[in-house]
């Protein structure tokens, strides 16, 4: 079915509660994640959480929402997704730091709505893992129906995707990405590509700094030629851009930490990091976070030592840990259940399990002052579920982003019949017209 038409059926109807409205959600079990549980009400004003308490008085004119005894939790943050973008890998070169997800955001990607319907309100949209340095990622809020410019999480620190291991090596002889051999083809080569890139970035940084110094002294000096590939790497060196590095094996994780230390920068998150539990101490010492899968394993040899206890072990070692989807590789609609799996594998507490998909990924993306927990002053990114969100039987009922309702289950259910009618009407139109009646004797 045509995407535009479909979109119109989902998004054309005005939102039930719009921006700036004052909303009081009553009769809820509020899981703040950072400050325990409050049974009572939550007040939204100007898109922010204004008050949480057992008894919150409804201000005049406030819209009242009865949660029906359901659970409120912070909007889910997915630290690693490939949704809402029209391109994933710039597969021609292994250092493609100049390309930006921001340039290819696709706000009409249905996966945004599906993620939203599962309670995901913020996603870190990254490049793929074909390249050692893949490109500049973008943190988005799942404002379904809004144009690309309004999807971007304003104020989120910029990031960049790195990748190590099999995917990067495979690009050399691969079927998916390029037909010709490409350096690197080994983990040794991958390290070298990272080092060469930062070697260049340092030189560029020095050149630029020297220019600034001489300019400041009043010298007449030509500016260095702008290098769009190295600029984001200089930002990494200066701590202005977060590194999110796709990795699997413990050896390559350690390699990246040491290389970063050598060049004087930090790895913000190890993405996937399936063997992070083997070097959790080293990761904690470096100060990197780990954003892993709940239980994916064995799909390739570097995932053969992946264990569903990874998140629990990393957490125990003091590593800032989150779970991600890599959507569409795994789905955002199961991210909450992925968090719940750490209760089977590692017996995490409710708050610990929930933190893996809320406050922890928010911290990893350095947006924890805005999202990731239900606290007064934070963005009103809120999810309502009918049962405890870590139960396999729970279903997301409503999702608010910045105090606006972007998903309502009942409304979605109602729209299905209408969509089906429109779909049938379209299919009818697609049918070929009956052949014209042939004239007798005509040839």
């Amino acid at each position, binding site marked *: 079915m045509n995407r535009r038409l479909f979109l119109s059926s989902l998004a054309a109807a005005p939102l039930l509660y719009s921006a700036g409205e004052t909303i009081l959600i009553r009769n809820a079990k509020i899981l703040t994640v950072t400050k325990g549980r409050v049974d009572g009400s939550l007040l939204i004003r100007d898109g922010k959480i204004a008050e949480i308490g057992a008894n919150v008085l409804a201000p005049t004119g406030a819209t009242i929402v009865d949660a029906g005894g359901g659970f409120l939790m912070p909007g889910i943050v997915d630290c690693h997704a490939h949704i809402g973008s029209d391109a994933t890998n710039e597969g021609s070169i292994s250092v493609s730091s100049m390309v930006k997800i921001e340039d290819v955001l696709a706000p009409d990607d249905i*996966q945004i709505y599906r993620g939203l*319907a599962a309670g995901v309100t913020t996603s870190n949209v990254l490049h793929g893992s074909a390249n050692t340095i893949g490109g500049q990622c973008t943190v988005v809020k799942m404002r379904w129906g809004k144009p690309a410019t309004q999807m971007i999480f304003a104020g989120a620190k910029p990031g960049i995707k790195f990748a190590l291991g099999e995917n990067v090596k495979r690009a050399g002889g691969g079927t998916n990405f390029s037909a010709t051999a490409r350096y690197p083809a080994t983990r040794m080569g991958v390290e070298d590509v990272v080092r060469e890139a930062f070697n260049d970035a340092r030189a560029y940084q020095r050149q630029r700094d020297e220019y600034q110094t001489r300019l400041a002294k009043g010298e007449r000096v030509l500016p260095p030629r702008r290098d769009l590939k190295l600029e984001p790497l200089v930002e990494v060196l200066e701590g202005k851009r977060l590194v999110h590095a796709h990795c699997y094996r413990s050896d390559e994780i350690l390699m990246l930490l040491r290389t970063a230390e050598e060049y004087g920068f930090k790895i913000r998150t190890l993405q996937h990091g399936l063997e992070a539990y083997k070097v959790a101490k080293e990761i904690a010492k470096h100060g990197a976070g780990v954003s892993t899968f709940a239980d994916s394993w064995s799909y390739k040899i570097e995932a053969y*030592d992946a264990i569903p206890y990874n998140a629990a072990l990393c957490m125990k070692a003091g590593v800032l840990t989150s779970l991600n989807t890599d959507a*569409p590789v795994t789905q955002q609609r199961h991210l909450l259940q992925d968090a719940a799996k750490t209760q*089977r594998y590692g017996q995490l507490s409710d708050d610990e399990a929930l933190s893996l998909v809320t406050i922890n990924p928010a911290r990893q993306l350095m947006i924890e002052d805005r999202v990731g927990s239900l606290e007064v002053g934070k963005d009103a990114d809120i999810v309502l579920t009918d049962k405890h969100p870590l139960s396999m039987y729970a279903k997301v009922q409503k999702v608010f982003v910045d105090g606006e309702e972007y998903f309502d289950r009942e409304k979605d259910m109602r729209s299905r019949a209408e969509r089906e009618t429109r779909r049938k009407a379209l299919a009818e139109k697609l049918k070929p017209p009956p052949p014209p009646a042939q004239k007798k004797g005509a040839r």
Partner: protein
Amino acid sequence: MRCPNILVFLTLAASLQAENFAIRGVTLHPVSSPDVPNAVLVVTGDRIADMGPKAAIPKGYKIIEGKGLHVYPGMIDSASVLGLSEIGSIRETQDITELGDFNPQLRTIIAINPGSEHIGVTRASGITASVVVPSGGFIGGQASIVHLDGWTWEEMAVEKSAAMQMRRASIEAGFGGRGGGRGFGAARRPFAEVKRRYDEQMQQVRLFFEQARAYQMRKANPVLGFKPDLRLEAMIPVLEGKKPLMIVAEKERGIRDALAFAEREKIKIVLAGAREVDPFLEELAKKNIPVVLPDLYQVPMEEDASIDEPLDIPAKLAKAGIRFAFGSYNIERPRNLPFQAANAVANGLPYDVALKALTLTAAEIWGIADRLGSLDKGKFADFILTDGDPLETKTQIKQMWILGNPVSLENRHTKLYEQYKKRL
């Protein structure tokens, strides 16, 4: 450590010595009858000897205190590749897909690696039996049912040849792009071209069945020089309606063709992987055709599909009175089967139907309900001891028995966990 050939030997199912025993003080969830609190379950040899609130424990039986715990029958994965696949991206570890379009003579049972790491990992979720299904060409071979325990495939076997796998011809015109669940870069072809190819393939399948029927007749009245044909010979139980044909069909056209095909050939079928079930609910119920659900952790088939698809399929089938079971299909996900069932409950499936689909209904579909699928006197002692509902992640599976043997829940993952926990 990275060579799969070595690794697969590490977690060989550790069957401990069987002894007669009884669990007392537990809540029994027989599935075939209502739950029994504070009950006794008595196991003699490989069978359930007695059960109930007042079942007597014979002298000399080992007693296990189960106060506060629960016993459920072991769960059954009705479509897996367990033991046929170890590492997704490494072809040398795959034994699922043979070359050629028609291979009814192939037997999965003999290719199931009892040392696969996946067996122990799957058991940890409470799954005790698995229907192992090949796939390749149109007829992929014979599916087999195994206990998830045993030193050899012979010891593991419940049914060496439980069903014949067949995949419907596909008419996908190539539907790349986001959100459609069709994967990357599928080539787009004109409809007329794919339709022509589809019709040709359908013709090939019909022809093969005709050959098999002809062979069946020749065999019944053999002439001098009659030579058995292994391929066609394997089709006879299917033609006789003794062995179900497990037809994999996802979309409307495939399902429609599968049903028409079964009707024409007068064969018994199990429909597997069906997603566009809406137009067929009445027919499936009327003909009592069972369904193995698709992997429910897939994205909706089309951009404009319901956000609940395919999680909403089980509820639809249940409402229509169609028997169904859960299948993992993928080597990575069998352990999530109980969670899929719970998610289906969240999407409208009654809980008891979900639990049955993982146990008794599955056993009924595969014709093994005389031995497996519920806690009943005389059935195999295949069950799990838990501290709660096994469909919830918070619940811990405490112990497992297969054929009366206590089976270790240790596996590759718990071992790595214990090993590296020490390094923290």
